[in-house]
């Protein structure tokens, strides 16, 4: 019950400062005095697979709040499955969510990331009367049986292809590269996706999975001479990850074009093209509003994300002596620690 209570938040748009909240309270109080004939405000229930404070989740929330601000009362439920990764926890949170949905009777559900669909939507709300908009599902909705008649949404695809295009644009003739990531399942799937893209263009991409910081550092240095470029995967899974060491190693050892699709790995890569959590939230919000506005949700196709952030690391550019095209330098965000 404690977790249930702790994971439900009601807000309109972004979190406001105290005085704004007070002002909002006053407005809410006044609104109670409005005659009962006032128009009914729609309720949107956001069900997060993760928890508040998790960067990816917060990004989705920001996009959602931006899209729904003033148009739909936003209620939130966190399944907290990142910090509690057991199936039991997720199932339990799914039940709590269901109970909350039944109590709240929202006009639409917005389910973020895979676990919400896996433990809540698919079991309880597939083809139900309540419309569901999902977002943040990795690569494919096939595991959850989407699309439903009452569900559509946006899947989360790493910007592998855009990254490849930039590598091609920078290096011109490319034959061989490497993929360095933590030795975890998701990174293996990530490698497969990357390999598909690169191999379709005749480029060999060698996988390197590591488990420790030392291995990562060692491999990072070794791979500088093993190919034309290095794709840096997710570090999640490296237990002794050290940002300082990773920074030091990247600064000292970068000789070739290093790239990544992960936002938090931009400190160690020369060029980063990363997906936007906010895009997921905004899309889900827009779809929710469209459905609430009368659009037939079954006719809205499931789409993939398409907005990226581009980062360049000037220090690593200097270390490597690599020149990036002016078009990239103009668009990119410069990062440095």
């Amino acid at each position, binding site marked *: 019950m404690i977790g249930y209570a702790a994971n439900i938040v009601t807000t309109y748009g972004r979190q406001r400062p105290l005085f704004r909240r007070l002002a909002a309270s006053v407005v809410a109080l006044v609104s109670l005095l409005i005659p009962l004939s006032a128009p009914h405000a729609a309720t949107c229930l956001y069900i997060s697979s993760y928890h508040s404070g998790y960067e990816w989740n917060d990004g989705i929330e920001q996009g959602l709040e931006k899209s729904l601000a003033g148009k739909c009362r936003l209620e939130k439920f966190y399944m907290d499955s990142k910090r509690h990764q057991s199936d039991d926890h997720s199932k339990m949170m799914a039940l709590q969510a269901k109970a909350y949905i039944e109590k709240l009777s929202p006009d639409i559900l917005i389910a973020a990331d895979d676990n919400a669909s896996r433990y809540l939507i698919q079991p309880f709300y597939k083809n139900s009367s309540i419309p569901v908009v999902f977002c943040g599902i990795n690569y494919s909705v096939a595991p959850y049986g989407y*699309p439903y008649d009452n569900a559509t949404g946006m899947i989360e695809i790493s910007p592998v*292809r*855009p990254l490849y*295009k930039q590598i091609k644009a920078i290096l011109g003739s490319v034959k061989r590269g490497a993929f360095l990531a933590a030795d975890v399942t998701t990174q293996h799937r990530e490698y497969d996706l990357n390999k598909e893209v690169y191999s379709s263009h005749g480029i060999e991409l060698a996988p390197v999975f590591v488990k420790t910081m030392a291995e990562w550092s060692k491999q990072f240095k070794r791979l500088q001479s093993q190919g034309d470029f290095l794709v840096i995967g997710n570090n999640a899974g490296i237990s002794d990850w050290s940002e300082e060491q990773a920074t030091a190693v990247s600064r000292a050892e970068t000789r070739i074009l290093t790239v990544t699709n992960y936002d938090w790995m931009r400190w160690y890569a020369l060029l980063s093209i990363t997906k936007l959590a906010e895009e997921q939230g905004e899309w889900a919000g827009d779809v929710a509003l469209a459905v609430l506005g009368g659009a037939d949700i079954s006719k*809205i196709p*499931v*789409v*993939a994300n398409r*907005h990226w952030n581009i980062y360049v690391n000037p220090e690593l550019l200097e270390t490597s002596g690599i020149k990036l095209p002016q078009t990239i330098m103009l668009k990119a965000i410069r990062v440095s620690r």
Partner: protein
Amino acid sequence: MFFSTPRPVLLAGVLGLLITAVMSGLSYNRLINDERHTFDNQVQNIREDLSIQSRKAIEALDNISSLFKASESVDIDEFHILASEQVERYPFIRTIYYAPYVLHSERSDVENAMHELGFIGFTIHAADDSTAGSFPIKYIEPFSPLYILRLGYDLLLTPSFTNAVNRAVDTAAITSAKSDITSKQSITLFKALYAGRLSLQERAIYPAMKNGMLALDIDPQILLQEVDRIPQLSVTLLYRNQPLTDKNATTSTAPELVHFDKQVTIGKEGMQLSLYCDKSVSWHQADLTLLLLSSGMGITITILLIVIARTFHSRSRLLLQRNEEVQALVDEKTKELQKLSSAVEYAGEAITLMDASGIIEYINPAFTRIMGYQPEHIVGQNAIMLGLSEQGSENFDEIWQTVVAGESWTGRQMSRHQDGTLIPTRLSMAPIHNSNSQLVHVVAIHQDLSEQEVIEERLRQSQKMEAVGTLVGGIAHDFNNMLAAIQGNVYLADINMDHPATVREKLGKIETLTSRASTMVQQLLSFARKDRVKLSSLSLNSMLKESFKLSETVVPENIDLIYDICEEELIVKADVTQLQQIIMNLLSNACDALKQADKPNITCRLSADDMEPSFMQAHPELKSSRVAHLSVADNGSGIAKSDLDKIFEPFFTTKDVGEGTGLGLSMVFGAIQRIQGAITVESTRHKGTTFHLYLPRIEQAAVISANDEQSDVIVQGMGETVLLVDDAHDVRDAISEVLSGIGYRVLTASDGKDALHQFSMHEQDIKAVISDVVMPHMGGKELFRLLRQRNPRLPFLMITGYDSLKAAGISADGDDCVLINKPFSVSSLSRQLHDMIHHTQPTDSSHSTGNQ
């Protein structure tokens, strides 16, 4: 009411209304023209703006097209990035989408590829019987839930798109069509994409090679919002004459002034749009301010004109009234001026108007007549310098200074005629001041006294004759007494021839009686003399003594005549004759007043007085306070108080007809005034009358005595030869005997011719000539002239029994001769003759002599 309105006001009102109408009309035209001009400009601006927006839409298509040309395959993210930029940049772009050309057999491949990209559920919606292929929408921007509903939709399924899509493929040009995919009106532009550069012929042969179509939806409402236009302007976009946008509804029910409309075509190949604009100008629009303002101004002008006209009319009427008043005043003044001018023009007195510096500005005709000057000769001349008075400019300058000082001056002047003769005038000069008391003019009036003086002279003469008549009556008695005495003494001398002492005594008495008779006759002649008034210094004491002697013959013996003459010699400047006449007149009046008196007496008193200032103020005519006071008092009947103020008026008399002329006292008054004296009278009825004469005294050593005391000494001759000429042989013989008796050799002649003859014979011997004045054949005067031609230094003594100068016809100024009157004493004759011969001058200042 209408007809009572003044015509200027009526005209002003009509004019104002006309101005109002014209201004309103002009303003209305201006308003309409401005509105039309504004409308045209706005339409043109909208057209240009829309044309620009149209080009921008085509540019957007070109931009995206270049992406596809630059890459063999365009990923969805690349399309979205570029397309979203275009959408953000151009708000009127509603949607941009890419539809690849998909053969019927390739549909599933495309769908699977889209599924792999994450577009789960992507399905191509194309006609099932389509074998040629379709253009399903693959990418779309904005990437929103509403728009992505159109993913997979075949463009050729839209009927209105078919022709445009085919035309875009066939012509390689950007085509357009009215969109009916959504409920919103829009224009869709199409641009075909090709895998390579194909000619038109190749495109026709290989239609399958076309690899896609770019399409762009334009929101006409937003497109119109992009252009700058005023709300009043209704703008409708048409596509193929079908409205894309609704006309702005006109809510105003106000009547319209005018309506404009215009349709223009925008764009060429890409977007064939028509723009239809219309605008109604109604009374409620703000631009009508000009019309209202001009109408208001017109009305204001009308009111102002009416007010001005009314004011003008009132002022005009007032001015007319004033003008009439002024004209009446001017006429009145003009008449007065004409009267005055006529008075001046026809005045008998010479009138001169001078400016403050003495420059003559005007003279009247009388001036010309009296003074002889024509206006053109004297106007503009300085009066001071002209010397119009006998005394010259210096005297006139004194008068001028008096006038300039602000005082008037009146006095007798001898004015000089243009021909140089002197005219007696009474000159009155007065200053003329302006309102600031500044001297601006001086007016001078010359009154010609010539005729007046002639009349006065005649009157004076008649008075004299009257007095002479009276005198002769008195003298005749004395003269007879003296003749009787002389006869008696001649008889006694004759019978006592033997007693020389007795004879000498009787002859002495005879000589005394003769001398008295001579004096009496001389006085009578002098009194009757018609000389001009000639002022000279004289001793009043001596003159009175002589006059009183003469008056003894006038005053009846029963009247006690008392003289009281002071010892101090009182010198006055006066005419002797006039003074004698004054005394005679006063004595005569006194005698007349004493006819009924008991113990009648007349007291004549002469004294020296210093008059009090009060007296001087009362008698400004009196020149000096130091006076000789002569009073003549009687104890007669006196003068009635009512007559006292009139006694000095001419022709006023209380005497019976034939007894008096009424001119006596008038002449006395005039004579006293002439010598700047004063006369007063005091009288009490039945007690008597006293006349007081105040004559200014002067200090002068040499004066004329009334009767110089002559020495009785006989100056003996030295045997000089004297030619005696007289037509009366008794006189000639007596004088010849006397001259011979006192030592002269005497030659005689009976007239002038005889005298010339004698002179021719004895020219060397004759030392002097004694001649009567009036003689037959040749008078003394002619003789004098002819003898002087022979001997300019020849002494010549005239003797005459007439009034000396007049009778001789000799001017005292020109002739160097001596004249004595008959009878004369032997001593006088001997002295004159002696003096002449021995070149000694006579003692008298004049050249005449005798018993004066």
